[in-house]
């Protein structure tokens, strides 16, 4: 049990270092054990160093840096244990335009092994999808309807053949 945890920890820490510097275009991040001599009970902590900055604890990162670091860890998990499908609800909300594109390009790399269902308002994410589902709420009825959406102009949803 302990051996398996140690091996899995090392693999994820390695994958996290890689996905972090890919998403941040540089910088370094690491997972470390809070009590390395007690593998049975130790916790796992995180430190991140965005490019050019000092090493930071999670609370000192900005809103967008935190979200991007969390996405890097998620991708590290997916790399070590690809899950058949994954649902992401507006995980790009705090990102600026450049980071939305970093995220959606990197997502593309993982879409070979994992199927993604993504909910988003951001152009960069929408443009990088394979298929789009439009939902709308009929103002009078309070009922959700599905609409078909053309990839070129996602904001112009048209009524789907129901």
């Amino acid at each position: 049990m302990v051996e398996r945890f140690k091996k899995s920890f090392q693999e994820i820490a390695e994958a996290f270092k890689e996905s972090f510097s890919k998403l941040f275009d540089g910088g370094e991040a690491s997972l470390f054990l809070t009590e390395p001599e007690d593998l049975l009970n130790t916790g796992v902590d995180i430190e991140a160093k965005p490019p050019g900055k000092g090493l930071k604890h999670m609370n000192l990162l900005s809103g967008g840096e935190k979200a991007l670091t969390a996405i890097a860890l998620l991708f590290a998990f997916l790399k070590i244990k690809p899950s058949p499908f994954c649902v992401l609800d507006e995980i790009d909300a705090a990102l600026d335009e450049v980071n939305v594109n970093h995220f959606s390009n990197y997502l593309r790399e993982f879409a070979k092994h994992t199927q993604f269902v993504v909910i988003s308002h951001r152009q960069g994410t929408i443009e990088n999808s394979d298929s789009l589902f439009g939902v709308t709420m009929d103002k009078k009825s309070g009922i959700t309807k599905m609409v078909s959406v053309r990839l070129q102009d996602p904001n112009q949803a048209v009524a789907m053949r129901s």
Partner: protein
Amino acid sequence: MFLKKFELHGFKSFADKTALEFNDGISTIVGPNGSGKSNISDAMMWVMGEQRIKTLRGARVEDVIFSGSDTHKPLGMAAVSITMDNQEGILSLPYEEVTITRKAYRSGESEFYINKNSCRLKDIQMLFHDTGIGRDSFAMIGQGRVDEIITAKPEDRRAMIEELA
């Protein structure tokens, strides 16, 4: 290819029977605020065995059933089905295609089905155990919750890594 089809009827704002056919790769759901996007992700967690009503953003069990509007009466039942391609045998069942169905009635009763055979909630939860999807998986990230995996306590993060071992 894993998730093939997803059907909702009476679940939250989906008063009408609605079906989504999924393809491989990245499917993105778009739409205005309040139109029902997060209700789809709630429905996915629910059909895969999620019981915690708070995670489903409700206060009472019946909050998952369509509660009416200016023009429509409340419904008495919510039903969600998820159809998955199982050719790689990810789910330990002897079928190439698996459909899970969950129903809840305003009376408080619930029904569960695997490929139209009635079963218990426990059977569904066991089915997804160890596959990386399902209720507690890191692969279901609700709205506004992306930061949780990095602001979690060190011992909780350890538990996540243990699950992947």
